């Protein structure tokens, strides 16, 4: 722990000051968590250096030597398929002088060579050699094996989604996800062939704090009918029906969230206005119901949104997956992809590609209205008065119910802040826990 953090730790009886910024009793969030640079640095350590973070879909690195570059927090990493077909996540920083080694965002390599002194690393991160290697070989106590690249401590895949953590003491990915895997299976396991990402990553910059878009996807059904009215009208010619879904829920497990309604089972997919996708989903309905059950077949493409803590969001139906990479306290770099079933016909895959482009991409008629909300919700913390006023997450308090089939914490009504409360509760858990054993099971 850094000296400052240690001092705070002592002063606060062992809990980070930051954790107190979520007030569960009053369902409010102290906006300091959106502007305080020290808290941001703590987040990089306590959240991004410990949690399981999404790094790639297996389909992006199918063959040995293939790699993609991404971020874990603010660390640039290379996700590399090894010759034994396992996956390693290498920190893209030369162990000699720290320079970034690989400047391509994807490709096929047999080694990674630093441009500065020619230090060469294998696909597994091992130091292979360097320019003027004899001088190093003749240097006392210089051992090649001491200079392999830093790596993620653990890498694990759940049905195509590759996650990694820097923390060797982290629980397994399955434990981290808990029963949330029941929900992930809706999208990842509704077909024998599994899933893939369509080629290409869209990347863009939002000048907002990373937590705002993350919590939005986890549980903000409320904004859809207002923020996205123009998007729905543009795609479908009508606005969003008021009252939304009456048979709807929010579910959260360990800070991961899924909110949906059962009134319009194809609602999200329908926003593309593309018959090919609706036909594909309808044709497969019986197969999916037999595979996943009567409840989950209606969650495949419903009006819904979801997220895995801390910063991995996705929309069932539109099938857009995105990570909000933190870039300082007031900026994110969003990376996004389109997920399809491997066995989907080519014209259906192309329909998803275009549908996401039209709705949830930088040119998309939905996404364009989200950006300004996130940016200005962040920007107004600059003022001494504005930053003093906490923000409210108390919608539909007391709506928790028991549900016989939906695993996790279930809340009646998707017009609700339950998942956001769970999100910030989880944030507070990690900001205060010194070890994983202190992170409660929720």
């Amino acid at each position, binding site marked *: 722990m850094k000296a400052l953090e240690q001092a705070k730790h002592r002063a606060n009886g062992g809990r980070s000051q930051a954790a107190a910024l979520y007030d569960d009793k009053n369902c409010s969030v102290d906006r300091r968590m959106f502007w305080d640079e020290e808290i941001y640095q703590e987040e990089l350590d306590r959240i991004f250096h410990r949690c399981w973070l999404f790094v790639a879909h297996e389909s992006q690195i199918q063959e040995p030597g293939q790699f993609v570059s991404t971020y874990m927090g603010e660390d640039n990493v290379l996700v590399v398929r090894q010759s034994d077909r396992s996956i390693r996540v290498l920190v893209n920083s030369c162990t000699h002088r720290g320079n970034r080694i690989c*400047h*391509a*965002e*994807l*490709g*096929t390599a047999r080694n990674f060579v630093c441009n500065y002194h020619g230090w060469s690393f294998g696909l597994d991160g091992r130091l292979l050699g360097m320019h003027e290697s004899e001088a190093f070989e003749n240097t006392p106590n210089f051992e090649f094996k001491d200079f392999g690249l830093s790596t993620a401590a653990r890498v694990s895949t759940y049905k195509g989604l590759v996650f990694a953590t820097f923390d060797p003491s982290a629980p397994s990915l399955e434990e981290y996800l808990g029963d949330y895997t029941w929900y992930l299976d809706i999208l990842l396991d509704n077909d024998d062939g599994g899933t893939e990402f*369509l*080629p*290409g*990553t*869209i*990347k*863009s*910059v*939002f*000048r907002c704090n990373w937590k705002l878009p993350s919590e939005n996807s986890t549980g903000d059904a409320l904004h859809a009918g207002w*923020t996205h*009215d*123009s*998007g729905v*009208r*543009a*795609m479908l010619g009508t*606005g969003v029906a008021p009252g939304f879904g009456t048979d709807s829920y929010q579910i959260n497990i360990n800070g991961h969230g899924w909110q949906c309604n059962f009134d319009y089972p194809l609602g999200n997919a329908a926003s593309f*206005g593309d018959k090919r996708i609706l036909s594909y989903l309808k044709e497969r309905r019986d197969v999916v119901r037999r595979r996943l059950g009567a409840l989950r077949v209606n969650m495949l493409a419903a009006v819904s949104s979801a997220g895995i803590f801390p910063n991995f969001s996705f929309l069932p139906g539109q099938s857009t997956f995105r990570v909000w990479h933190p870039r300082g306290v007031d900026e994110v*770099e969003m990376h996004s*992809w*389109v997920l399809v079933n491997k066995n989907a016909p080519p014209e259906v895959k192309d329909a998803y*590609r*275009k549908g*996401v*482009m*039209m709705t949830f*991409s*930088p*040119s*998309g*008629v939905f*996404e*364009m*209205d989200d*950006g*300004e909300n996130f*940016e200005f919700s962040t920007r107004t913390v600059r003022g001494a008065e504005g930053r003093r006023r906490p923000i409210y997450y108390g919608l539909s308090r007391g709506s928790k119910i028991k549900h016989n089939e939906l695993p996790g914490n279930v809340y009646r009504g998707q017009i609700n802040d339950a998942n956001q409360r769970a999100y910030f509760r989880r944030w507070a858990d990690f900001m205060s826990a010194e070890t994983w054993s202190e992170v409660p099971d929720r």
Partner: protein
Amino acid sequence: MSVVKDNATAACGIVPASVQGEIERFLYLEARLLDEGDYDSWLVLLAPDIHYWMPIIENRMRGDPIGTYGPDRVAYFDDTLDDIKRRVARFQSRTAWAEDPATRHIHVISNIEVEAGEKPDEVVAHSIFINYRNRGERDEDILYGRRRDLIRRRSGSWLLARRRILIAQNVLLAKNINTFL
């Protein structure tokens, strides 16, 4: 850069100065209509079979044969006329909150080179765009790129039939693209 099959046909030679002048005026008119937010008039400049394509640009090593962009990948725009009209519908919607107040757009078009197309009534035009946009008090973004157009003459007017836009960015250094380029 590897050769990529794209949506403009091969160029076949120089055009008379008068045609160069007409195409320049066409592209400047298009830019002014976009600056003014006059999308109805802008749509009239598009051919019914338009393909409007702006691929993502990937950071790949020079030696990577796959190339930095391609038609099979996700894209910012990969539009037919119907797709474009949907986008315009949002721009013109009263509830497009992020467009109200309006963004101030300037489209600078430059380096226009016009070549004869494969067909007698078509030309290929290369140009550069700089889209400066300013929103609210001090929010600014500047997008730069190259365009390659197929422009067709019909009944005395020019129509944009194909556009390929290559933006000079990998990460889009903006939260959205709220115009056409």
